[in-house]
């Protein structure tokens, strides 16, 4: 049965849910890798492996969603809650551009005290100052949250954010696109599976490209993992809006849910399966942030063709216990050592060039930055201009 399925995959046939399940459960790990690697090689023949230099900035950690797998958020009114000021964000952009970065990945909690005008003003301010910088911002649940608290329909939110400077959308918040799982993870309220898909559909129709993600290793069954992949594939058939797919394992430390992390082999098998099932998504990223540099590099033999981001800053995964760091030099070393040719790219996966450190001197970066330095509880001045909705937010404004 597995041999027959392997032949089918090698012949380029589409794999259905039952076949995917059989492969995932029964195929030896190396065979799954071999199938995924063959598909990667067909799609990306010149042995190029890409990466992007960008910064993952979390503009706020205040969140009303309270997903039970999240170690990053702080409830409204928490003394550890923060919102970054525009100037702080500009400083981060300056640092990012100094090491060759061309994109800001901007995501945050569902903060009830940030109206849509705050996002519009921020995006305009960034684009006014850095016209070349790409804004890869706001996952579907954040867009839904903005839509809900401002009573503005999703297509209009998307249109207004695009008018303000939004370039593309990160695929965060997908977790597993099955409502049974979402209810158990307490993330059904922030976006049901259909809602996540719908926001993406609107965004794709508005001309935005996006990534799709999957956080596995919590309560989902193998069948549900596959259902997630098929939902992404179905939308991609419809819109063609996804540039890439990224899978990462649930990081349990400091989370309400707790438990243990899925193993490295589980990651490589899941990645390979994603490459096999997602026959209409060009790019698969290696999640070295959750798997470490070594298994991250091995992802290149299990279907990945992209090493993701030289992150510069990361807060969410670190809060849950993983703190791997690779600067551009190390990412390039890993790509070349695996027999591939490294190329810098943008969010649309257009090749920008060779490694920047070979063109000019850039400082080595052996540690990822955080959103804020420890103990910094400052409240940005400009928050005053935006009305708060929560009681704690109102009190904070009055105290400013």
């Amino acid at each position: 049965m597995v041999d027959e399925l392997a032949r089918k995959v090698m012949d380029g046939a589409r794999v259905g849910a039952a076949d995917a399940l059989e492969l995932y459960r029964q195929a030896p790990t190396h065979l799954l890798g071999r199938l995924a690697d063959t598909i990667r090689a067909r799609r990306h023949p010149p042995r190029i492996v890409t990466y992007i230099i960008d910064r993952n900035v979390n503009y706020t950690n205040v969140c009303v969603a309270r997903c039970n797998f999240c170690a990053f958020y702080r409830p409204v009114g928490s003394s550890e809650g923060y919102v970054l000021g525009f100037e702080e964000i500009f400083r981060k952009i300056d640092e990012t551009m100094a090491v060759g970065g061309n994109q800001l990945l901007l995501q945050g909690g569902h903060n009830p005290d940030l109206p849509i005008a705050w996002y519009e003003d921020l995006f305009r301010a960034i684009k006014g100052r850095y016209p070349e910088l790409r804004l890869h911002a706001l996952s579907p649940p954040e867009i839904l949250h903005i839509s809900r608290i401002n009573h503005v329909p999703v297509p209009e939110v998307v249109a207004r954010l695009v008018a303000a400077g939004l370039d593309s959308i990160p695929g965060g918040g997908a977790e597993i696109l099955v409502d049974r799982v979402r209810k158990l993870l307490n993330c059904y309220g922030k976006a049901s599976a259909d809602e996540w898909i719908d926001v993406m559909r609107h965004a794709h129709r508005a001309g935005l490209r996006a990534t799709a993600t999957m956080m596995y290793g919590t309560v989902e069954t193998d069948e549900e993992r596959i259902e997630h992949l098929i939902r992404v594939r179905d939308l991609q058939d419809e819109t063609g809006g996804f540039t890439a797919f990224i899978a990462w394992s649930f990081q349990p430390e400091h989370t309400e849910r707790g438990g243990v992390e899925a193993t490295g082999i589980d990651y490589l098998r899941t990645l390979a399966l994603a490459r096999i099932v997602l026959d209409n998504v060009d790019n698969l990223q290696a999640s070295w942030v959750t798997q470490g540099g070594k298994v991250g590099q091995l992802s290149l033999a299990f279907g990945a063709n992209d090493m993701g981001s030289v992150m510069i800053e990361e807060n969410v995964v670190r809060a849950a216990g993983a703190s791997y760091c690779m600067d551009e030099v190390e990412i390039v070393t890993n790509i070349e050592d695996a027999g591939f040719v490294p190329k810098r790219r943008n969010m649309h996966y257009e090749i920008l060039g060779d490694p920047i450190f070979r063109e000019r001197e850039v400082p080595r970066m052996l540690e990822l930055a955080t959103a804020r330095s420890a103990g910094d509880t400052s409240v940005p001045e400009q928050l005053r201009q935006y009305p708060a909705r929560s009681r704690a937010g109102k009190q904070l404004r009055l105290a400013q």
Partner: protein
Amino acid sequence: MTSSSTFDRLLDRVNAGERLTADDIAQLAATPDILSVGMLADALRRRLHGTRVTYARVAACAFDASFANAVPPVAREIRITGCPTSLTSARAAVESAKAVAGDRLVSGFCWQDVERLGSNAGLPVARVLAELRAAGLEALAEMPMDAIDDEAAVIDTLRQAGFDRLRLTVAKAPAAERTGAMLRAAALQARFGGIRAIGPLPTVLDALRPTTGYDDVKAVAIARLAAPNIPTVQVDWQRDGPKLAQVALTFGADDLDNVTASDEAPDGRRRAPVEEVRRNIEAAGFTAAERDGRFHPVS
């Protein structure tokens, strides 16, 4: 890998119990196709060990610390870390470890330590080995092949001194040099016997230029394929980390060495290390079996 027909031919030979030649090994070491190398090593590993993966809980204890406090009952081996300058102190450390160990194996020191103890005491290494052995030392913790000039003489000396569960290691040789070392290990085994295990991943970590995942799994696979006459290929659970160690099991490794013997779960971990080890082994499709320091199964 050059072509699928070359791979198929090599796989047939491995499955038939034939040994790959030095040229085959060199060709495999040069290919970026780690999946093919991994499949070959996995086939050989399964022929030798089936689906069984062993692990050993080791209590590591500095030579000058209190062994009584550092050795939990579940430890299956006591490994002395570091080395004093004098033979008298080294012997005393072994005696203290042995007193706590009971019938469990005591290991410690590396070959260079033995040489240094000999030169400090003005004694030949054979005498140093004899004294340490008399004090209760059963195995050297490390024998870094890349740091030993005359490997044959060293192995001969150790065998003559009664050390019969040798564990060859690599200190920091680059990947290219490790292939030669693995082939030499196989030749030494054929000549002297007594080599129980190889640990092909470097014991000395370079923070600025760490080895990569490809380097590591290929080194494991090459060790397995180059030295089919050495029973065990090991990775180190603590040093190499759970993720890489687990993946290495599918690239030819059959043993997880140096699992922490403490059953406490510090740092918020919610599972004891041994449960984590077993979970990782099973998630890789193998069956987990605990062993003691002498490589005997623990029931």
